[in-house]
């Protein structure tokens, strides 16, 4: 995996909550046995009309977002199916980071991203940024107001900077330390885990899997 340090790009708004991975990449594209080629199929059913031409009603198809690389959306993005193809599709469609709001705390907490999706992003160098609902609403309004609005993601400092015409606005975000370290260095999970093979072997000697041979 390539390391992620900083990225600057145009924001594109997908103003919907609970976008599930069936919408991000529909089932017919899951038949591929390859890891590439999913980009043009991201958001397929929303993005294209029945005749295969781009759907002008779909917000991400607007010409002003053609060069976008940061997706701005609402909470619980990526819920449903565990298909990693959803992350492959977004990454191959040019998205390096996704911004979504979390709401509330404790029992009332609603996350910006679904669990498995967020985990899959971490394996593919896509940075998932969770900000407060107020902050995300502010960014949505700024994106609607200012064509070509860019933002910078600085993973090391855990900051998203909005480059508005009136000046930069900075948003700090929380980020899992283990994932951050991995993305910054572009580490491979399997390679890392194989370093603990002695621990795994020792564990296996005393562990019963109840497997009938």
């Amino acid at each position, binding site marked *: 995996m390539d390391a992620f340090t900083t990225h600057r790009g145009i924001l594109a708004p997908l103003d919907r909550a609970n976008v599930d991975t069936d919408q991000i990449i529909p089932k017919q594209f899951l038949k591929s046995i390859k890891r590439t080629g999913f980009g043009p199929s991201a958001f397929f059913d929303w993005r294209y009309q029945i005749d295969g031409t781009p759907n002008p009603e779909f917000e991400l198809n607007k010409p002003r977002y053609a060069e976008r690389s940061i997706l701005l959306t609402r909470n619980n993005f990526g819920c449903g199916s*565990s*298909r990693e193809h959803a992350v492959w599709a977004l990454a191959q469609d040019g998205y390096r980071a996704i911004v979504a709001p979390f709401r509330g705390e404790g029992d009332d907490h*609603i996350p910006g991203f679904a669990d498995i999706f967020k985990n899959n992003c971490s394996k593919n160098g896509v940075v998932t940024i969770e900000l407060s609902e107020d902050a995300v609403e502010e960014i949505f309004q700024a994106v609607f107001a200012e064509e070509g609005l860019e933002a910078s993601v600085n993973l090391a400092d855990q900051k998203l900077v909005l480059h508005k015409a009136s000046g930069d606005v900075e948003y700090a975000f929380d980020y899992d330390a283990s994932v951050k370290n991995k993305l910054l260095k572009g580490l491979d999970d399997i390679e890392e885990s194989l370093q603990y093979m002695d621990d795994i072997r020792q564990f296996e000697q005393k562990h019963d899997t109840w497997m009938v041979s």
Partner: protein
Amino acid sequence: MAKTLFEKIWDRHLVRDLPDGTSLLYIDRHLVHEVTSPQAFEGLRLTGRKVRHPELTFSTMDHNVPTDENRLNIQDPISAAQVEALEKNCADFGVKLYGIGDSRQGIVHVIGPELGITLPGLTMVCGDSHTSTHGAFGTLAFGIGTSEVEHVLATQTLRQKKARTFKVEYTGKLSPHVHSKDMVLKLIGMIGTAGGTGSVFEFCGEAVRGLSMEARMTICNMSIEGGARAGLIAPDETTFEYITARDRPFAPKGAELERALAQWRSLPSDPDAVFDRTLTIDASKIAPQVTWGTSPGMVIDVDQPVPGLNDVAGYSAADVRKALDYMGLEPGQKLTDIRPDTIFIGSCTNSRIEDLRRAAAILKGRKKADSIKLLVVPGSHQVRLQAEAEGLDKVFKDAGAEWRWAGCSMCLAMNPDKLAPKERCASTSNRNFEGRQGAGGRTHLVSPEMAAAAAVEGHFVDIRSWNGGN
């Protein structure tokens, strides 16, 4: 210190804590299917790695397989290529495969328990979010992405962060004809599709204890629809009876079984164990559930009207409008006025023998409405054989149903079974997302009994007061 069931399983599988704050967790069983595995096997090839424990790895084909009589000849060349890739990968890496035509083939989450692969106290993963199903046995089971599939194949471990624990207690007894599908849909309606994110559910209480293993699997299956990667039910005599009553080739027997049973009996959460979150639901008050929208959290009691734009907790008016437009519904409509075109009884949620028995009990001696297409798809070849031995296939066929072969079928329409745009379906599956059962298709999630009764009447009915169409 008192521990929950989850913590007991976690502790028993912890290889070691890692410096970066994650933990290396040992995986006892790895289920593999054709859709989410090809890129993982390819990754092994590119790095020259092997499958560390082929004997703990089991694969089958379910998503792509046709379910009609001509199922052995897959017409779609891309589906066929994916199935062939799994055959080659299993042969190259020494992994067991129950392919099309094998008497043990079926939906991965149906054959695991059926073959005794799923056992209490184990950890289990699969590149499929409905792996949570196996939690019904007190198995810590969850879905993973393809990168993690490759990680498990190579190391037999996963890097994990410990989840929070979320106890869901169902007190009291269920009303007649209300069942586990309604229990889990009710929960999702209450907490939303993100409510369980970061947590592992433990389902407990009188109403859960009274459920069969099949019914327990239905609840755990839809944990992911409540945002939780896993759901657990403590093993008990019902669990042990399921494992030992039939020949389950991979389950321990004899002295091994006695040793296993002693361990399994120690698994339930300690009485004073503390959960991060607790929710109590009065099971006696649960009504049959029907989804009206495009998310499993958009669900109501069968006797409630389709909600207004501002009446749905957790969804904005715009989201509700979008969902209603997609579904072709209006606020205030009665569910009993909604007429599905197709009824799908099947999927890893509701395709086991008890699900088919419940549907057959409704359909016995009755006919589907003329306007309805009725599809009954057993979850595995073994379920199909057992249903036929019990004469259920005859009940279905006499009612006008198509009696199919095992597979995921219309749950996600990666195979020829799919909805046309705007076609409306009452489905016993797990997801009513836009296009899930076919682009433009409209899905209402229900229990097998509710689906069967809707097939007879041609519209939804309140199964509690239904007079059988007489």
